[in-house]
């Protein structure tokens, strides 16, 4: 219960941050990705602000074995840079460049009642489903 409540809080603040920053608007994101046009560097400032806070949080987290609510700290253990990571990143980046949506802003724009965002999110969830099916059939083989 505590865990879900903290999750709800984090999701809400995350979403509000995306709205304040303008990142829930795909045109603004594409303005950042369009370096050959009139470039809007705003997205870099969003990343910068988030990382500024994040660096402090991870420095604190690194010294703990339990979270402040008493849950186990589940930090990523892999530091492997492999083909999956790079190819997955490239695929994601192409999709990001086509519509200007990454997962968070897509969900926020869906919440704002945008039909086009709902279509994007539905296709994204379908893509995640395709990934699951491929992974499972591979695990069986």
């Amino acid at each position, binding site marked *: 219960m505590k865990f879900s409540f903290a999750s709800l809080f984090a999701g809400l603040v995350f979403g509000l941050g995306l709205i304040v920053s303008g990142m829930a608007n795909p045109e603004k994101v594409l303005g950042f990705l369009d370096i050959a046009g009139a470039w809007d560097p*705003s997205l870099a400032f969003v990343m910068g602000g988030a990382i500024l806070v994040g660096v402090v949080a991870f420095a604190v987290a690194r010294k703990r074995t339990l979270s402040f609510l008493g849950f186990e700290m589940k930090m990523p253990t892999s530091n492997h840079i492999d083909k999956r990571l790079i190819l997955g*990143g490239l695929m994601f980046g192409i999709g990001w460049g086509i519509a200007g949506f990454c997962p968070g802003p897509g969900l926020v724009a869906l919440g704002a009642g945008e039909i086009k965002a709902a279509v994007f999110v539905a296709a994204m969830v379908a893509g995640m489903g395709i990934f699951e099916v491929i992974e499972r059939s591979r695990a069986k083989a």
Partner: protein
Amino acid sequence: MIEIAWSNFTPWSALLGGILVGIAAASFLLLNGRIAGISGILGGLLAPAKGDIAWRLAFLLGLIGAPAVWVLATELPPIEIEAGYPALIIAGLLVGIGTRYGSGCTSGHGVCGLSRLSLRSLAATLSFMAAGFVTVYVIRHLLGV
């Protein structure tokens, strides 16, 4: 040379929004001990384990509910989606498969990964940023869409 769109550039609201995103990731990490990676939180629902569903739904509810909370205070800023439906479907499929295959998106690799100084996340972030830049270049400047 790079020409900055000063009329669109919003450094202060970007920085403020970024700090809020950072606070969200920080509270998720310090309260729950987890990485706030949105593609992972959503994708995990498609292979659900017992006791692993409610918190994911709660996080997504917060994210999707943010505009509803926002309008209690003020009007939502514009959301301009220029892409047509076929493009949105292709983009969604690529984002869905790609983020799961590469184990993360802008939040997990970009915000959290770079915050914990992970080289793996840096490599992922450079990959999707590079692909994003090239894709927009091709669409806007080579194809002229």
